[in-house]
């Protein structure tokens, strides 16, 4: 198991170097002069020249990359030129918010998606199955921003139960925090639940028709145990991968949902940074999320190995 983990970690390093080059390189392809955007409405030529110098835009690409890489290796992701704040600090501010939102959303998705998928597979062809499929289809086809605005109109404007938008830290007031997170987390979790439900259903159907399940049933194992202990455990492997990937996507920022609910997380941070050509923020946040993604994949791989010992041997 240890060798397996070490081997997997070793593959991360070249991936990260490649990713850092890709992030930096792709950003240079973005059209528009960042200095001109950051110079604001007046676009004073002396300000533009100063910004170009500060951002090393007057240097060739490899030099700019090395400047950035040197900073990254020293733990310095640069400074937002628009907000005059260190990128590391911005990430540290936004990460807990996005992490909390992603965790609540994924819990909502798991609580809805997996049981619905299991019921749908076990009760295949019945009203339960059709009902779960309709719900999944609704979850998949409802745009997040539309659902978000509808929830705001219902629960905030009409009923007045929940705040329309904004974020309160759990350390300030945990009740207010929960109230501000429940709608955006539901919007995000709802879409993921639908995907999880579909995948759980198909994985369960496949497993339920396999030989060992038939053997278990022939041996007289209780149907509940067949489903939960024998079938679900195997069916969970692709679901874990999917869950990790969806969680990674949530970490990289649920852009529209954060925009609608004005949640100050990664999504809003990166969108604003891209539109304002705040290169340091874009590079820092993308590098961070790419790293998080890679690490989550590693965690998923290790989880496979725990759930299915054959993977370790292979």
């Amino acid at each position, binding site marked *: 198991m240890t060798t397996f983990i070490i081997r997997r970690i070793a593959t991360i390093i070249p991936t990260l170097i490649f990713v850092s080059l890709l992030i930096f390189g792709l950003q240079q392809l*973005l*059209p*528009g*002069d*960042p200095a*001109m*955007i*950051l*110079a*604001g*409405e*007046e*676009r*004073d*030529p*002396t*300000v533009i020249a*100063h*910004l170009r110098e*500060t951002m090393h835009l007057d240097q060739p690409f490899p030099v700019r990359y090395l400047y950035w890489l040197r900073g990254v290796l020293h733990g310095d992701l640069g400074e937002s030129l*628009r*907000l*005059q*704040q260190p990128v590391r600090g*911005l990430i540290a*501010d936004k990460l807990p918010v996005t992490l909390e939102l992603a965790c609540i959303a994924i819990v909502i998705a798991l609580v809805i998606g997996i049981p619905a998928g299991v019921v749908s597979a076990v009760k295949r062809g019945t009203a339960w199955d059709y009902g779960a499929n309709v719900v999944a289809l609704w979850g998949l086809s409802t745009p997040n921003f539309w659902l978000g*605005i509808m929830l*705001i*109109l219902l629960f*905030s*404007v009409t009923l*007045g139960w929940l*705040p*329309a*938008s*904004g*974020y309160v830290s759990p350390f300030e007031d945990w009740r207010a925090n929960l109230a501000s997170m429940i709608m955006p987390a539901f919007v995000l979790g709802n879409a993921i639940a639908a995907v999880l439900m579909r995948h759980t259903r198909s994985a369960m159907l496949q497993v339920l028709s396999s030989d060992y399940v038939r053997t278990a049933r022939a041996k007289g194992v209780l149907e509940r145990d067949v489903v939960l202990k024998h079938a679900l455990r195997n069916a969970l492997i692709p679901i874990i991968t999917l869950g990790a990937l969806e969680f990674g996507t949530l970490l990289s920022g649920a852009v529209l949902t954060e*925009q*609608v*609910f*004005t949640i*100050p997380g990664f999504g*809003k*941070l990166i969108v*604003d940074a891209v*539109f*304002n*050509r705040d290169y340091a923020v874009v590079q820092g946040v993308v590098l961070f999320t790419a790293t998080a993604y890679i690490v989550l994949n590693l965690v998923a791989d290790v989880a496979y190995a725990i759930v299915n010992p054959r993977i370790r041997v292979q």
Partner: protein
Amino acid sequence: MPNGFRRCALIVVCALLSVINAHAQTLRIGLAEDPDVLDPTLARSFVGRIVFAALCDKLFDIDEKLNIVPQLAASYEWSADSKALTIKLRPDVTFHDGEKLDAAAVKYSLERHKTMAGSNRRGELAPLATVDVVDAATVRLNLTAPFSPLLAQLADRAGMIVSPKAAQAAGDKFGAKPVCAGPFKFVERVAQDRIVLERYANYWNKGDVHFDRVVFLPIPDSTVRLANLRSGQLDFIERLGSSDVPQVKADSRFRLTKITEIGYQGITINLGKSDLAQKNPLGRDPRVREAFELALDRDGIVQVANDGEGDAGNQWVAPTNPFYAKTVPIPARNLARAKALLQEAGVTNPSFTLMTPTTADAQRIAQVVQAMAREAGFDIKIQSTEFATSLDLADKGQFDAYVLAWSGRADPDGNIFSFDGCKQPLNYAGYCKPEVDDILNRSRTTRDVAERTKLFGELAAIVLKDRPIVYLYHRHWLWAYASKIEGLRPIPDGLVRVTGVRFK
């Protein structure tokens, strides 16, 4: 008896505390964007100026009629040759850190605006040569040449005075915790979430401050901003969506205030920014540009693009502005004349690309202009381009025509000089005429309003015929707020002055 006394005292204290608590009032304002850095020297955005209006007082301010009125200045006097401005300061002003606001602080701030690396105020104060401290309460600003827009510049960020002690200590990080002399002091900022200000107890005009806190919350989506107002989480929102006006008007819990902006919406035409200008009949032939303008119904554009929430206009200032050139009124739509002009120019179906940022209002303008001009024979292709990219293309002259808005400045100079002066930074049209430069420069050297009005009239006669920019309309700033709010002053720059505002 002592126990009874204690009980009574406790009740009185509790009652007093509850009264104090009841009066602790917070004004929550919904902003359309997240402001950039809160350093008056480095700040660049319009929305940041809304926060500064509560945080940093300026030497001067503007009133409802765009008159310049003293704020930190008590009085001022120009020298006979208009090359020196002497300002007497209010005697009783302190910064939020308790330091005294005196002539030395003014000198420091103005010099900081002039010399700090990356300062956005340097251009605004370009004619300012030196600042003399005459005495503790008097400064003299010495100019290289007379500069009539100076007072208007000092009524904006260039006139904001910062605490020298705090600015020296913080260096270029001053924006993280700005220390000024406004009615509210900085408490905290969570980027993209909130900016919290607290009443400054020693404010020079504290009688006009009626809130303990002001909280600014950036909420970019106008529907969500309005939902927050309707659910009671906000007291005030700026830039209400024009399509939401009927909804606010129909609800007695809210009020609406409209102010015509000092900026404009217009279409910039490439006249000489690149070779592309001469390859297109629109850039090449003034008759084609005239035909294009005559094909447009400005009132119709306001109706369709902005739900009627704007005033049609054909100049860099609104028709209600004292500097509006009445000799060049808004031309009425005239399709027959437009077609005749195209015939005369030998291009009955001119074709060009209209570049537009991806914002909803700019796209609506482009679509309605396309439809109107088609009736005169124009074939317009709309090119929707992300804002930063569009700006880059405009700067390189890679466009035929470009839908572009300007937030406006109090002095008309701020709406025209940088756009129509040869080689000026905002002259995307590539327009350059020595006689225009001459008038622009002369309008800067005279302070006489009648003389300046005459010069702007001369300018209008030339520029509006050449059409580097076809001005379309001036938007209404739309403010929606809880009906318990009173005392709001609608100033055309669209910035909310929180002094004088209170809950009923």
